[in-house]
């Protein structure tokens, strides 16, 4: 972070001045860090290994981070679960639609709330901030969704979670840093507030919309509880995460039952064991995140630190 000449000489000096104690402490720290890296990555690598490993072989256990008998059969088997493909499509759809809707709404409202002369600014701000601290609980929320007839509709994924107060504050504080003079000259040219938002504010907001959009996208892709609560009876709109949840719950029920060990699981399966199917679906559910993660993680971090500084 401090790429000055001073820092570099300090660093060089450090290697010369290292005492025995320093070396031991360094070794301990490196060892701890390697353990953290291993503990973080191992479950992911294990999922990948089992997903690409022969199903009957996986049941014997002992798979580490490499497949023992590599095969693609598990992925072919996924085709036999029609819910999974449709779940993937719905997940993708809600991620795209949800992110676009949430992002546009958040930015538009944030822009309005950034305007100091707006007459309802205080009222709206208080209303949205309050939602961060008060949670009405699951059942009243469930009833409101029912009353609006949103249950079993695709829009239950998009509308109730449209705006997060945290992201709203993030975008608003970003817009407030943009010099007001940019807007003023546009006003003089006769532009209205909406045009200014569209033509001036949105393009300038690109860095913060990248961060906030990613937050929304990850949230949409990962959410499963709304399906479980509001849409479980409409099989056409269940999501991938929800389907994975059902598969997991089946295995949890078996784990709790000592009579049904792995032997029971094999007897039940058709050609691929539940363990392999579970891991393959997990891999499919996590791959989009793994693919974009290396490229976008810096936006997440910048969003967090920006929000922290503000609050």
């Amino acid at each position, binding site marked *: 972070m401090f790429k000055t000449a001073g820092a570099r000489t300090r660093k060089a000096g450090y290697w010369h001045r290292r005492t025995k104690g320093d070396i031991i402490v360094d070794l301990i720290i490196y060892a701890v860090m390697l353990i953290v*890296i291993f503990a973080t990555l191992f479950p992911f690598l294990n999922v990948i290994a089992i997903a690409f490993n022969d199903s009957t072989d996986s049941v014997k256990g002992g798979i580490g981070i490499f497949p023992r008998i590599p095969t693609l059969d598990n992925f072919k088997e996924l085709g036999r679960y029609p819910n999974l493909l449709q779940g993937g499509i719905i997940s993708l759809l809600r991620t795209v639609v949800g992110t676009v809707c949430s992002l546009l709404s958040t930015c538009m409202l944030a822009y309005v709330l950034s305007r100091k002369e707006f007459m309802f600014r205080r009222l709206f701000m208080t209303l949205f901030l309050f939602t961060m601290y008060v949670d009405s609980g699951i059942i009243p929320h469930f009833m409101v969704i029912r009353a609006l007839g949103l249950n079993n509709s695709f829009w239950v994924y998009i509308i109730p979670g449209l705006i997060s107060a945290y992201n709203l504050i993030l975008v608003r504080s970003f817009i407030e840093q943009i010099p007001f003079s940019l807007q003023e000259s546009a006003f003089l040219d006769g532009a209205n507030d909406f045009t200014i938002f569209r033509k001036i504010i949105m393009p300038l907001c690109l860095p913060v919309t990248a961060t906030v959009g990613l937050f929304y996208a990850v949230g949409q892709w990962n959410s499963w509880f709304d399906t479980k609560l509001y849409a479980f009876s409409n099989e056409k709109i269940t999501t991938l995460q929800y389907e994975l949840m059902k598969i997991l719950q089946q295995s949890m029920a078996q784990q709790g039952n000592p009579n049904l060990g792995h032997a029971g699981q094999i007897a039940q399966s058709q050609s691929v064991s539940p363990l392999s199917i579970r891991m393959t679906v997990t891999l499919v559910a996590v791959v989009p995140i793994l693919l974009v993660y290396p490229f976008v993680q810096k936006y997440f971090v910048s969003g967090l630190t920006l929000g922290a500084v503000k609050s």
Partner: protein
Amino acid sequence: MLNSTRAVAPRKRRKKEQPPLLQRLSKQRFLIMMSFPFFIWVIVFCYLPLLGWGMAFQDFKLKGDVLQSFFSAPFVGLKHFEILWHDLINQGRFFLALRNTLAMSVLLLVFGFVTPIIFALMLNELRSKWFKRTTQTISYLPHFISWVVAATMISSMLSSEGPVNDLLIWLGLSEKRVPFLADQNLFWGIMTISEIWKELGWNAIIFLAAISGVDPGLYESAELDGAGRFRKIWHITLPCILPVITVILIMDIGWLISVGFEKQYLLGADMTRNTSEVLDIYALKAGVDQGRFSFGTAIGMFKSVVSIALVLVANAIAKKTGETSII
């Protein structure tokens, strides 16, 4: 702070002589049009459910239309809260749910709060920039996966044929394979470790940002005085990031009862119900699954009220300690 109030003051005075309401309305019509839909949205999805708390004082039965059921339901006063109170005294299911929620929250508050600080301090001691950045990037990967995916991984790691058992046997720490998730005595510990596994790197970011903001000159002068690395951490790094630590600690206390329910829901089984069922899950099962909506609402309301009280207490502490208020 002073400067900004001085700058705002003249504008405020101008506001006083502002044009009448109608003129202002017409002048701000675009702003109003742009924000009004979201006003409706926040009322419907965030404040209407609060009115639903009225259900806690009724015997609500869902028959067809929700609104009709709501207005035709008989008022029963504090009946459901009395049931909860009796349950609490007799150590029934509500007592267990409250105990589990608090136990897991406190465990998480203690361990989940300290580990990111230690992790951040250790990361900061790494000399290799490349290794530091890689470790950090890897460490917050689990934050971005869903609890469903995380729970699937955890259940496969901890199954009796899983890698954790393999490791324990290989190390000679245990002789037979343990079905970790079927043992109710281990549940709280497993939940705490899972949460730390998932959020360690993410929670460390804020401390790392604070550490990188420490004036390097302080370290240089300490070095001239002959301070070793532990003394530098103890006398410079920690005092410098203490304000951040305080704020985060206070916020965590505020969220004490709001421990998530996803991991408990996904990893809990019937066998571990006594230690895995938290308030949200109990409210959900009693309310939605059994149709005792009023009772479930009462549980949720109890939780929310305690949670708000905790936030207010935390905020009061924050003001006392001289930090800025967190609300």
